[in-house]
């Protein structure tokens, strides 16, 4: 509420400020509902059965049995979550380390034709994954990596390195060079400058990059669909489609599976909201 200002007699409230604030609050509440309601609806439908989902889609569930969640977990979601975790964590580590090292080289070392090298690395942003699909299938098949975890880890890393390098490089450019010089004078090698000085200083942007990468790898569908097959190697997005049949789908189990798969991302979002927003802002601003 706005405090009585000097231009108003004490006790008199600025009506317009109250109205504006109320409107703002109402707008934010509405936005909150628009975002949260579908998620809550999805989680609630996991407690229903097919006839309730179709007959009374917006009602609360008749009972609170976890049976559908248990069934979804045992019907493959456990495998999908494991595969998604392995691929996301491994590709996340690879992407961030390679990008940070590249960014360090691009900002801190002297090299001829640096702008061209920067352009070359960032040029990867322009490459559409769909276009590269067929050559990639051939390449990975000849390397014996088709239908393995490595296929996804390598591809996710390769396609995310340009963007992540772009973010980390922009951040490193703002770090004062005096720090490196001081470290070098104390006898630190270039590797030590990177590991001990620059990398710890880049922590905020690295966390943002990890989060953006997790978001990408967790939800990626095209590569996961093309480069893996069979329930043992499917990630969540592909696995979820195999729970849905053309006929005989138990939609309640599908909703339960969707809720389970969304949970880690929602938890990460709330835990690291600050970095999420920073990551997005850095991506747009630079």
């Amino acid at each position, binding site marked *: 509420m706005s405090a009585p200002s000097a231009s108003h007699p004490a006790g008199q409230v600025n009506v317009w400020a109250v109205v504006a604030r109320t409107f703002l609050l109402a707008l934010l509440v509405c936005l909150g509902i628009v975002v949260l309601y579908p998620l809550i609806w999805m989680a609630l439908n996991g407690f229903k059965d097919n006839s309730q989902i179709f007959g009374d889609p917006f009602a609360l569930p008749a009972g609170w049995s976890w049976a559908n969640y248990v069934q979804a977990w045992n019907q493959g979601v456990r495998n999908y979550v494991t595969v998604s975790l392995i691929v996301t964590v491994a590709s996340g580590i690879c992407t961030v380390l390679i990008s940070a090292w590249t960014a360090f080289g691009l900002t801190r070392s002297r090299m001829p034709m640096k702008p061209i090298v920067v352009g070359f690395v960032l040029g990867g942003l322009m490459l559409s994954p769909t276009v590269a699909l067929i050559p990639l*299938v051939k390449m990975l*098949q000849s390397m014996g990596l088709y239908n393995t975890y490595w296929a996804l880890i390598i591809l996710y890393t390769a396609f995310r390195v340009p963007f992540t390098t772009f973010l980390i490089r922009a951040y490193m450019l703002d770090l004062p060079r005096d720090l490196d010089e001081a470290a070098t004078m104390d006898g630190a090698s270039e590797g030590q400058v990177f590991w001990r000085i620059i990398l710890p200083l880049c922590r905020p942007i690295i966390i943002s990059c990890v989060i953006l990468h997790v978001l990408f790898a967790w939800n990626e569908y095209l590569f996961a669909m093309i480069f893996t097959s069979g329930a043992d190697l499917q990630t969540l997005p592909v696995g979820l489609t195999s729970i849905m049949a053309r006929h005989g789908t138990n939609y309640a189990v599908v909703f339960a599976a969707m809720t389970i798969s969304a949970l880690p991302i929602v938890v990460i979002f709330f835990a690291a909201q600050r970095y999420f927003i920073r990551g997005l802002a850095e991506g747009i601003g630079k």
Partner: protein
Amino acid sequence: MKRSSHVVAVAAASALALSAGPGSAREAVVADPNAKVEYSGTLSILTKFGLQQLSPYFVNVAKEYEKLHPGVKIELIQESDDSVKGKTKTLVASNSLPDIYFSWTGSWGENFVRGNRAVDLTKVVGPDTPWGKTLSPAAVKAFEYNGKLYGIPLYLDAKFMGYNKPAFEKAGVGVPATFEKLLEACDALRKGGTTPISLGNKEAWPAVHYAGQLLAYNVPTATLERDFDPARAKFDDPGYVASLAQFKALVDRCTDGAAVNGTSYASSLQAFSNADSAMYYQEIIEFDQAASADTKLKGADFGFFRLPPPAAAKGDVKAIEGAPEGYMINTASKKIPLAIDFMKFVTAPENARVLSAPPYGQPSAAIDGASEATMNPAVVAGLKDIASASYLMPWLDTANTPRVAAAWLSSLQALVGGTMTPEAVMAEVKKASAADAKRK
């Protein structure tokens, strides 16, 4: 079927990739029935059984086969309804299609044949061959292109009208023998306060399925088949407009009218299972889902009949709309005899019976593939109807070229919505077909 409309969209985009890919210069390969089978090496298969409940089928069959022939290793690529399309396209384009791969009938399968990617199996699976005699002839024929057979049907599917027996009794109606009687039954059911037929046409293919069956009744088969080919198509038979007028009458008298365009097929099936509607036009593979121990409509109250033919029908009144789904063998495979041998094993009666029974519930295309002891009696009876059908009318949206199929899908939706007349629908279909003929 959701699949068929998807196929249209995907086929449109992928016809080029499937046929004119890097392998368009391939030579046709004919399977030799006397070739010696070498039981060694790895055999790869792209299946459409990636779904949780279906995936163990091929895994188990492969294990048994490997046990019988220790030198052979079966490599399975199991995909779901949706992912199999993208996967197939990529594998074709990168020339790495496995030895055996899944195919639908109609224009999807035709692309493989046109690109010489499917082995000509006529001498192996033809009706007079030992293997051919164990398979449903109509199902084998569904994979016929240019007079040759290219596919091995694995399971059958066809459309039937499922009905709620107590609802029929309450309204005092019996199983209708003609289409006109069906409309009268609808009036009686509606008077009793029940929705006669639940139809959900949001996905557009449900209307196409009704139209397909009515076309088979009203248009002579030879004319229909001629019209599937844009180069020869005329669409001048009066049976076309008559079928569409009959379908419109069914929509008006038996369903919720234009509102069905806003209802999904899944909710209309649920309405039938909840006993909120008296009938639902469904595929045989939906029988187990429509009435079960968990649904309000119990198995004992579930009945089915073929969509009754109109009294004045000029086409084939014994035709059923439906299509098998099956497998083709890659012309680039180095193990064609082994691939054929494996598929013989998959379609052998003991494996076929496993496929037909729950939990898989996919009615096998093998003649001895049904076991009454383990299967839903309604499915067994339905399979008999399919076996006695004189012609399996392919799904309209897979038999036609993608452009014509798209015209059928959208204009039939407009017909249901009341914004197009039967004549206008046919004009639209003719236009699409003529455009395709010009392109070729």
